[in-house]
């Protein structure tokens, strides 16, 4: 049995429901799935890219298995795992993951990564509003503003980013906006990578589903917890 098959079996995916005679054993959920601690970890061989590639190929169960295997309990992998659970209507798994989504810090990052991945489509504007409320920095708001299909709004975002953080603006100009003769500014490459990696993975996964996940995690639109507020 290969890695994916083992991971899928461990999650109870693709193998059908447990037989009636097989009563849940100690440490197992009632539906036969093992607790998360029994799921293979990232060093078992899967990667986020593997999971997204599986989704691209329409193998959603396999993608979920990989996401579960590489989940470290927080961050992008957890977010996408939860979004996949939402998509599969796996309420049991989703409920277990929502606290980690609510606790993700800084709170604005995920909201703006999703908004940027949505490229201006709803509910991008409400995510931006939320991010602003929880202290998103000017550069992140500007970058997200530039990530829209509307040419005027896009240009305004580019201008905002130039005035907020010229080094990052030049790196984004080189990598995202494809401005002629633009080049990375070394001072900002790491920050670029940190934000863009999440945005691109969310876009590839399906930004609308991740936005739905955020709405589920913060149904009131959001009262951030005190710990998430900036001083």
């Amino acid at each position, binding site marked *: 049995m290969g890695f994916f098959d083992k991971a899928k079996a461990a999650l109870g995916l693709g193998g059908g429901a447990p037989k009636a005679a097989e009563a849940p054993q100690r440490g197992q959920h009632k539906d036969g799935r093992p607790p998360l601690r029994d799921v293979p970890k990232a060093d078992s061989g899967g990667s986020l890219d593997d999971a997204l590639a599986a989704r691209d190929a329409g193998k959603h169960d396999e993608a979920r298995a990989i996401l579960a295997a590489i989940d470290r309990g927080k961050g992008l992998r957890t977010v996408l795992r939860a979004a996949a659970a939402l998509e599969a209507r796996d309420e049991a798994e989703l409920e277990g993951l929502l606290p980690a989504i609510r606790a993700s810090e800084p709170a604005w990052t995920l909201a703006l990564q999703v908004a940027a991945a949505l490229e201006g489509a709803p509910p991008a504007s409400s995510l931006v509003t939320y991010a602003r409320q929880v202290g998103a920095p000017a550069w992140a708001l500007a970058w997200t503003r530039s990530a829209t299909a509307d040419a005027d709004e896009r*240009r305004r975002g*580019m201008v905002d980013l130039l*005035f907020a953080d010229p080094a990052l603006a*030049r790196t984004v100009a080189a990598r995202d906006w494809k401005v002629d*003769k633009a080049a990375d500014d070394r001072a900002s490459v790491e920050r670029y990578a940190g934000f863009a990696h999440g945005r691109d993975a969310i876009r590839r996964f399906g930004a609308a589903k991740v936005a739905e996940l955020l709405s589920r995690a913060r149904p009131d639109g959001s009262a951030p917890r005190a710990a998430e507020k900036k001083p």
Partner: protein
Amino acid sequence: MSRPLLSLFTVDRPALAAFEEELKELFYKDDRDALITLLGFGASFAEQVRAAPRAVDLFLVPESEATGFYASVRRIAKKRALEHAWTSTSPALEGRLREYDIIREDAALARSVDALLDPRRVPWFLRRPGGTAGMVSAAEGEGIAEGLQSKEDLPEEVVHLAEALAGLDGDLLCHDGLL
């Protein structure tokens, strides 16, 4: 290559903010003609501005790819909001400020001096790649002057800077490439 000399400029903050806002608004609107007028571009630069996909694109490339554009913005910003007040005669001044142990041993003074050399305090269009720039308020400038003048055995170039700072009123820009 000789090291550049640090200069001090008094800053008209409202005028500088107004220029920054005007520039931003032109980029927002992508108003090429107004930008050409504002920056006083000749025919060659004007043609490049009109040919660019967006006016702001010209400032999203490294300065080495658009030297004339950046220099023009600095020139107009200086004309609008800066007044030259003093220039050091010693290329060693910046090194003294950053390294001299008598300054560095006084943490508060060192922080203030560093602010004078911190380009993050300066609008993006006044920064020069590899150059030195910083901006301090009038009170910070006075604090640096007093702090430096309270020390003994400072190098001559630092003493001259302290004297210049003590004699100036208002917010100050320190820059090595605006003359």
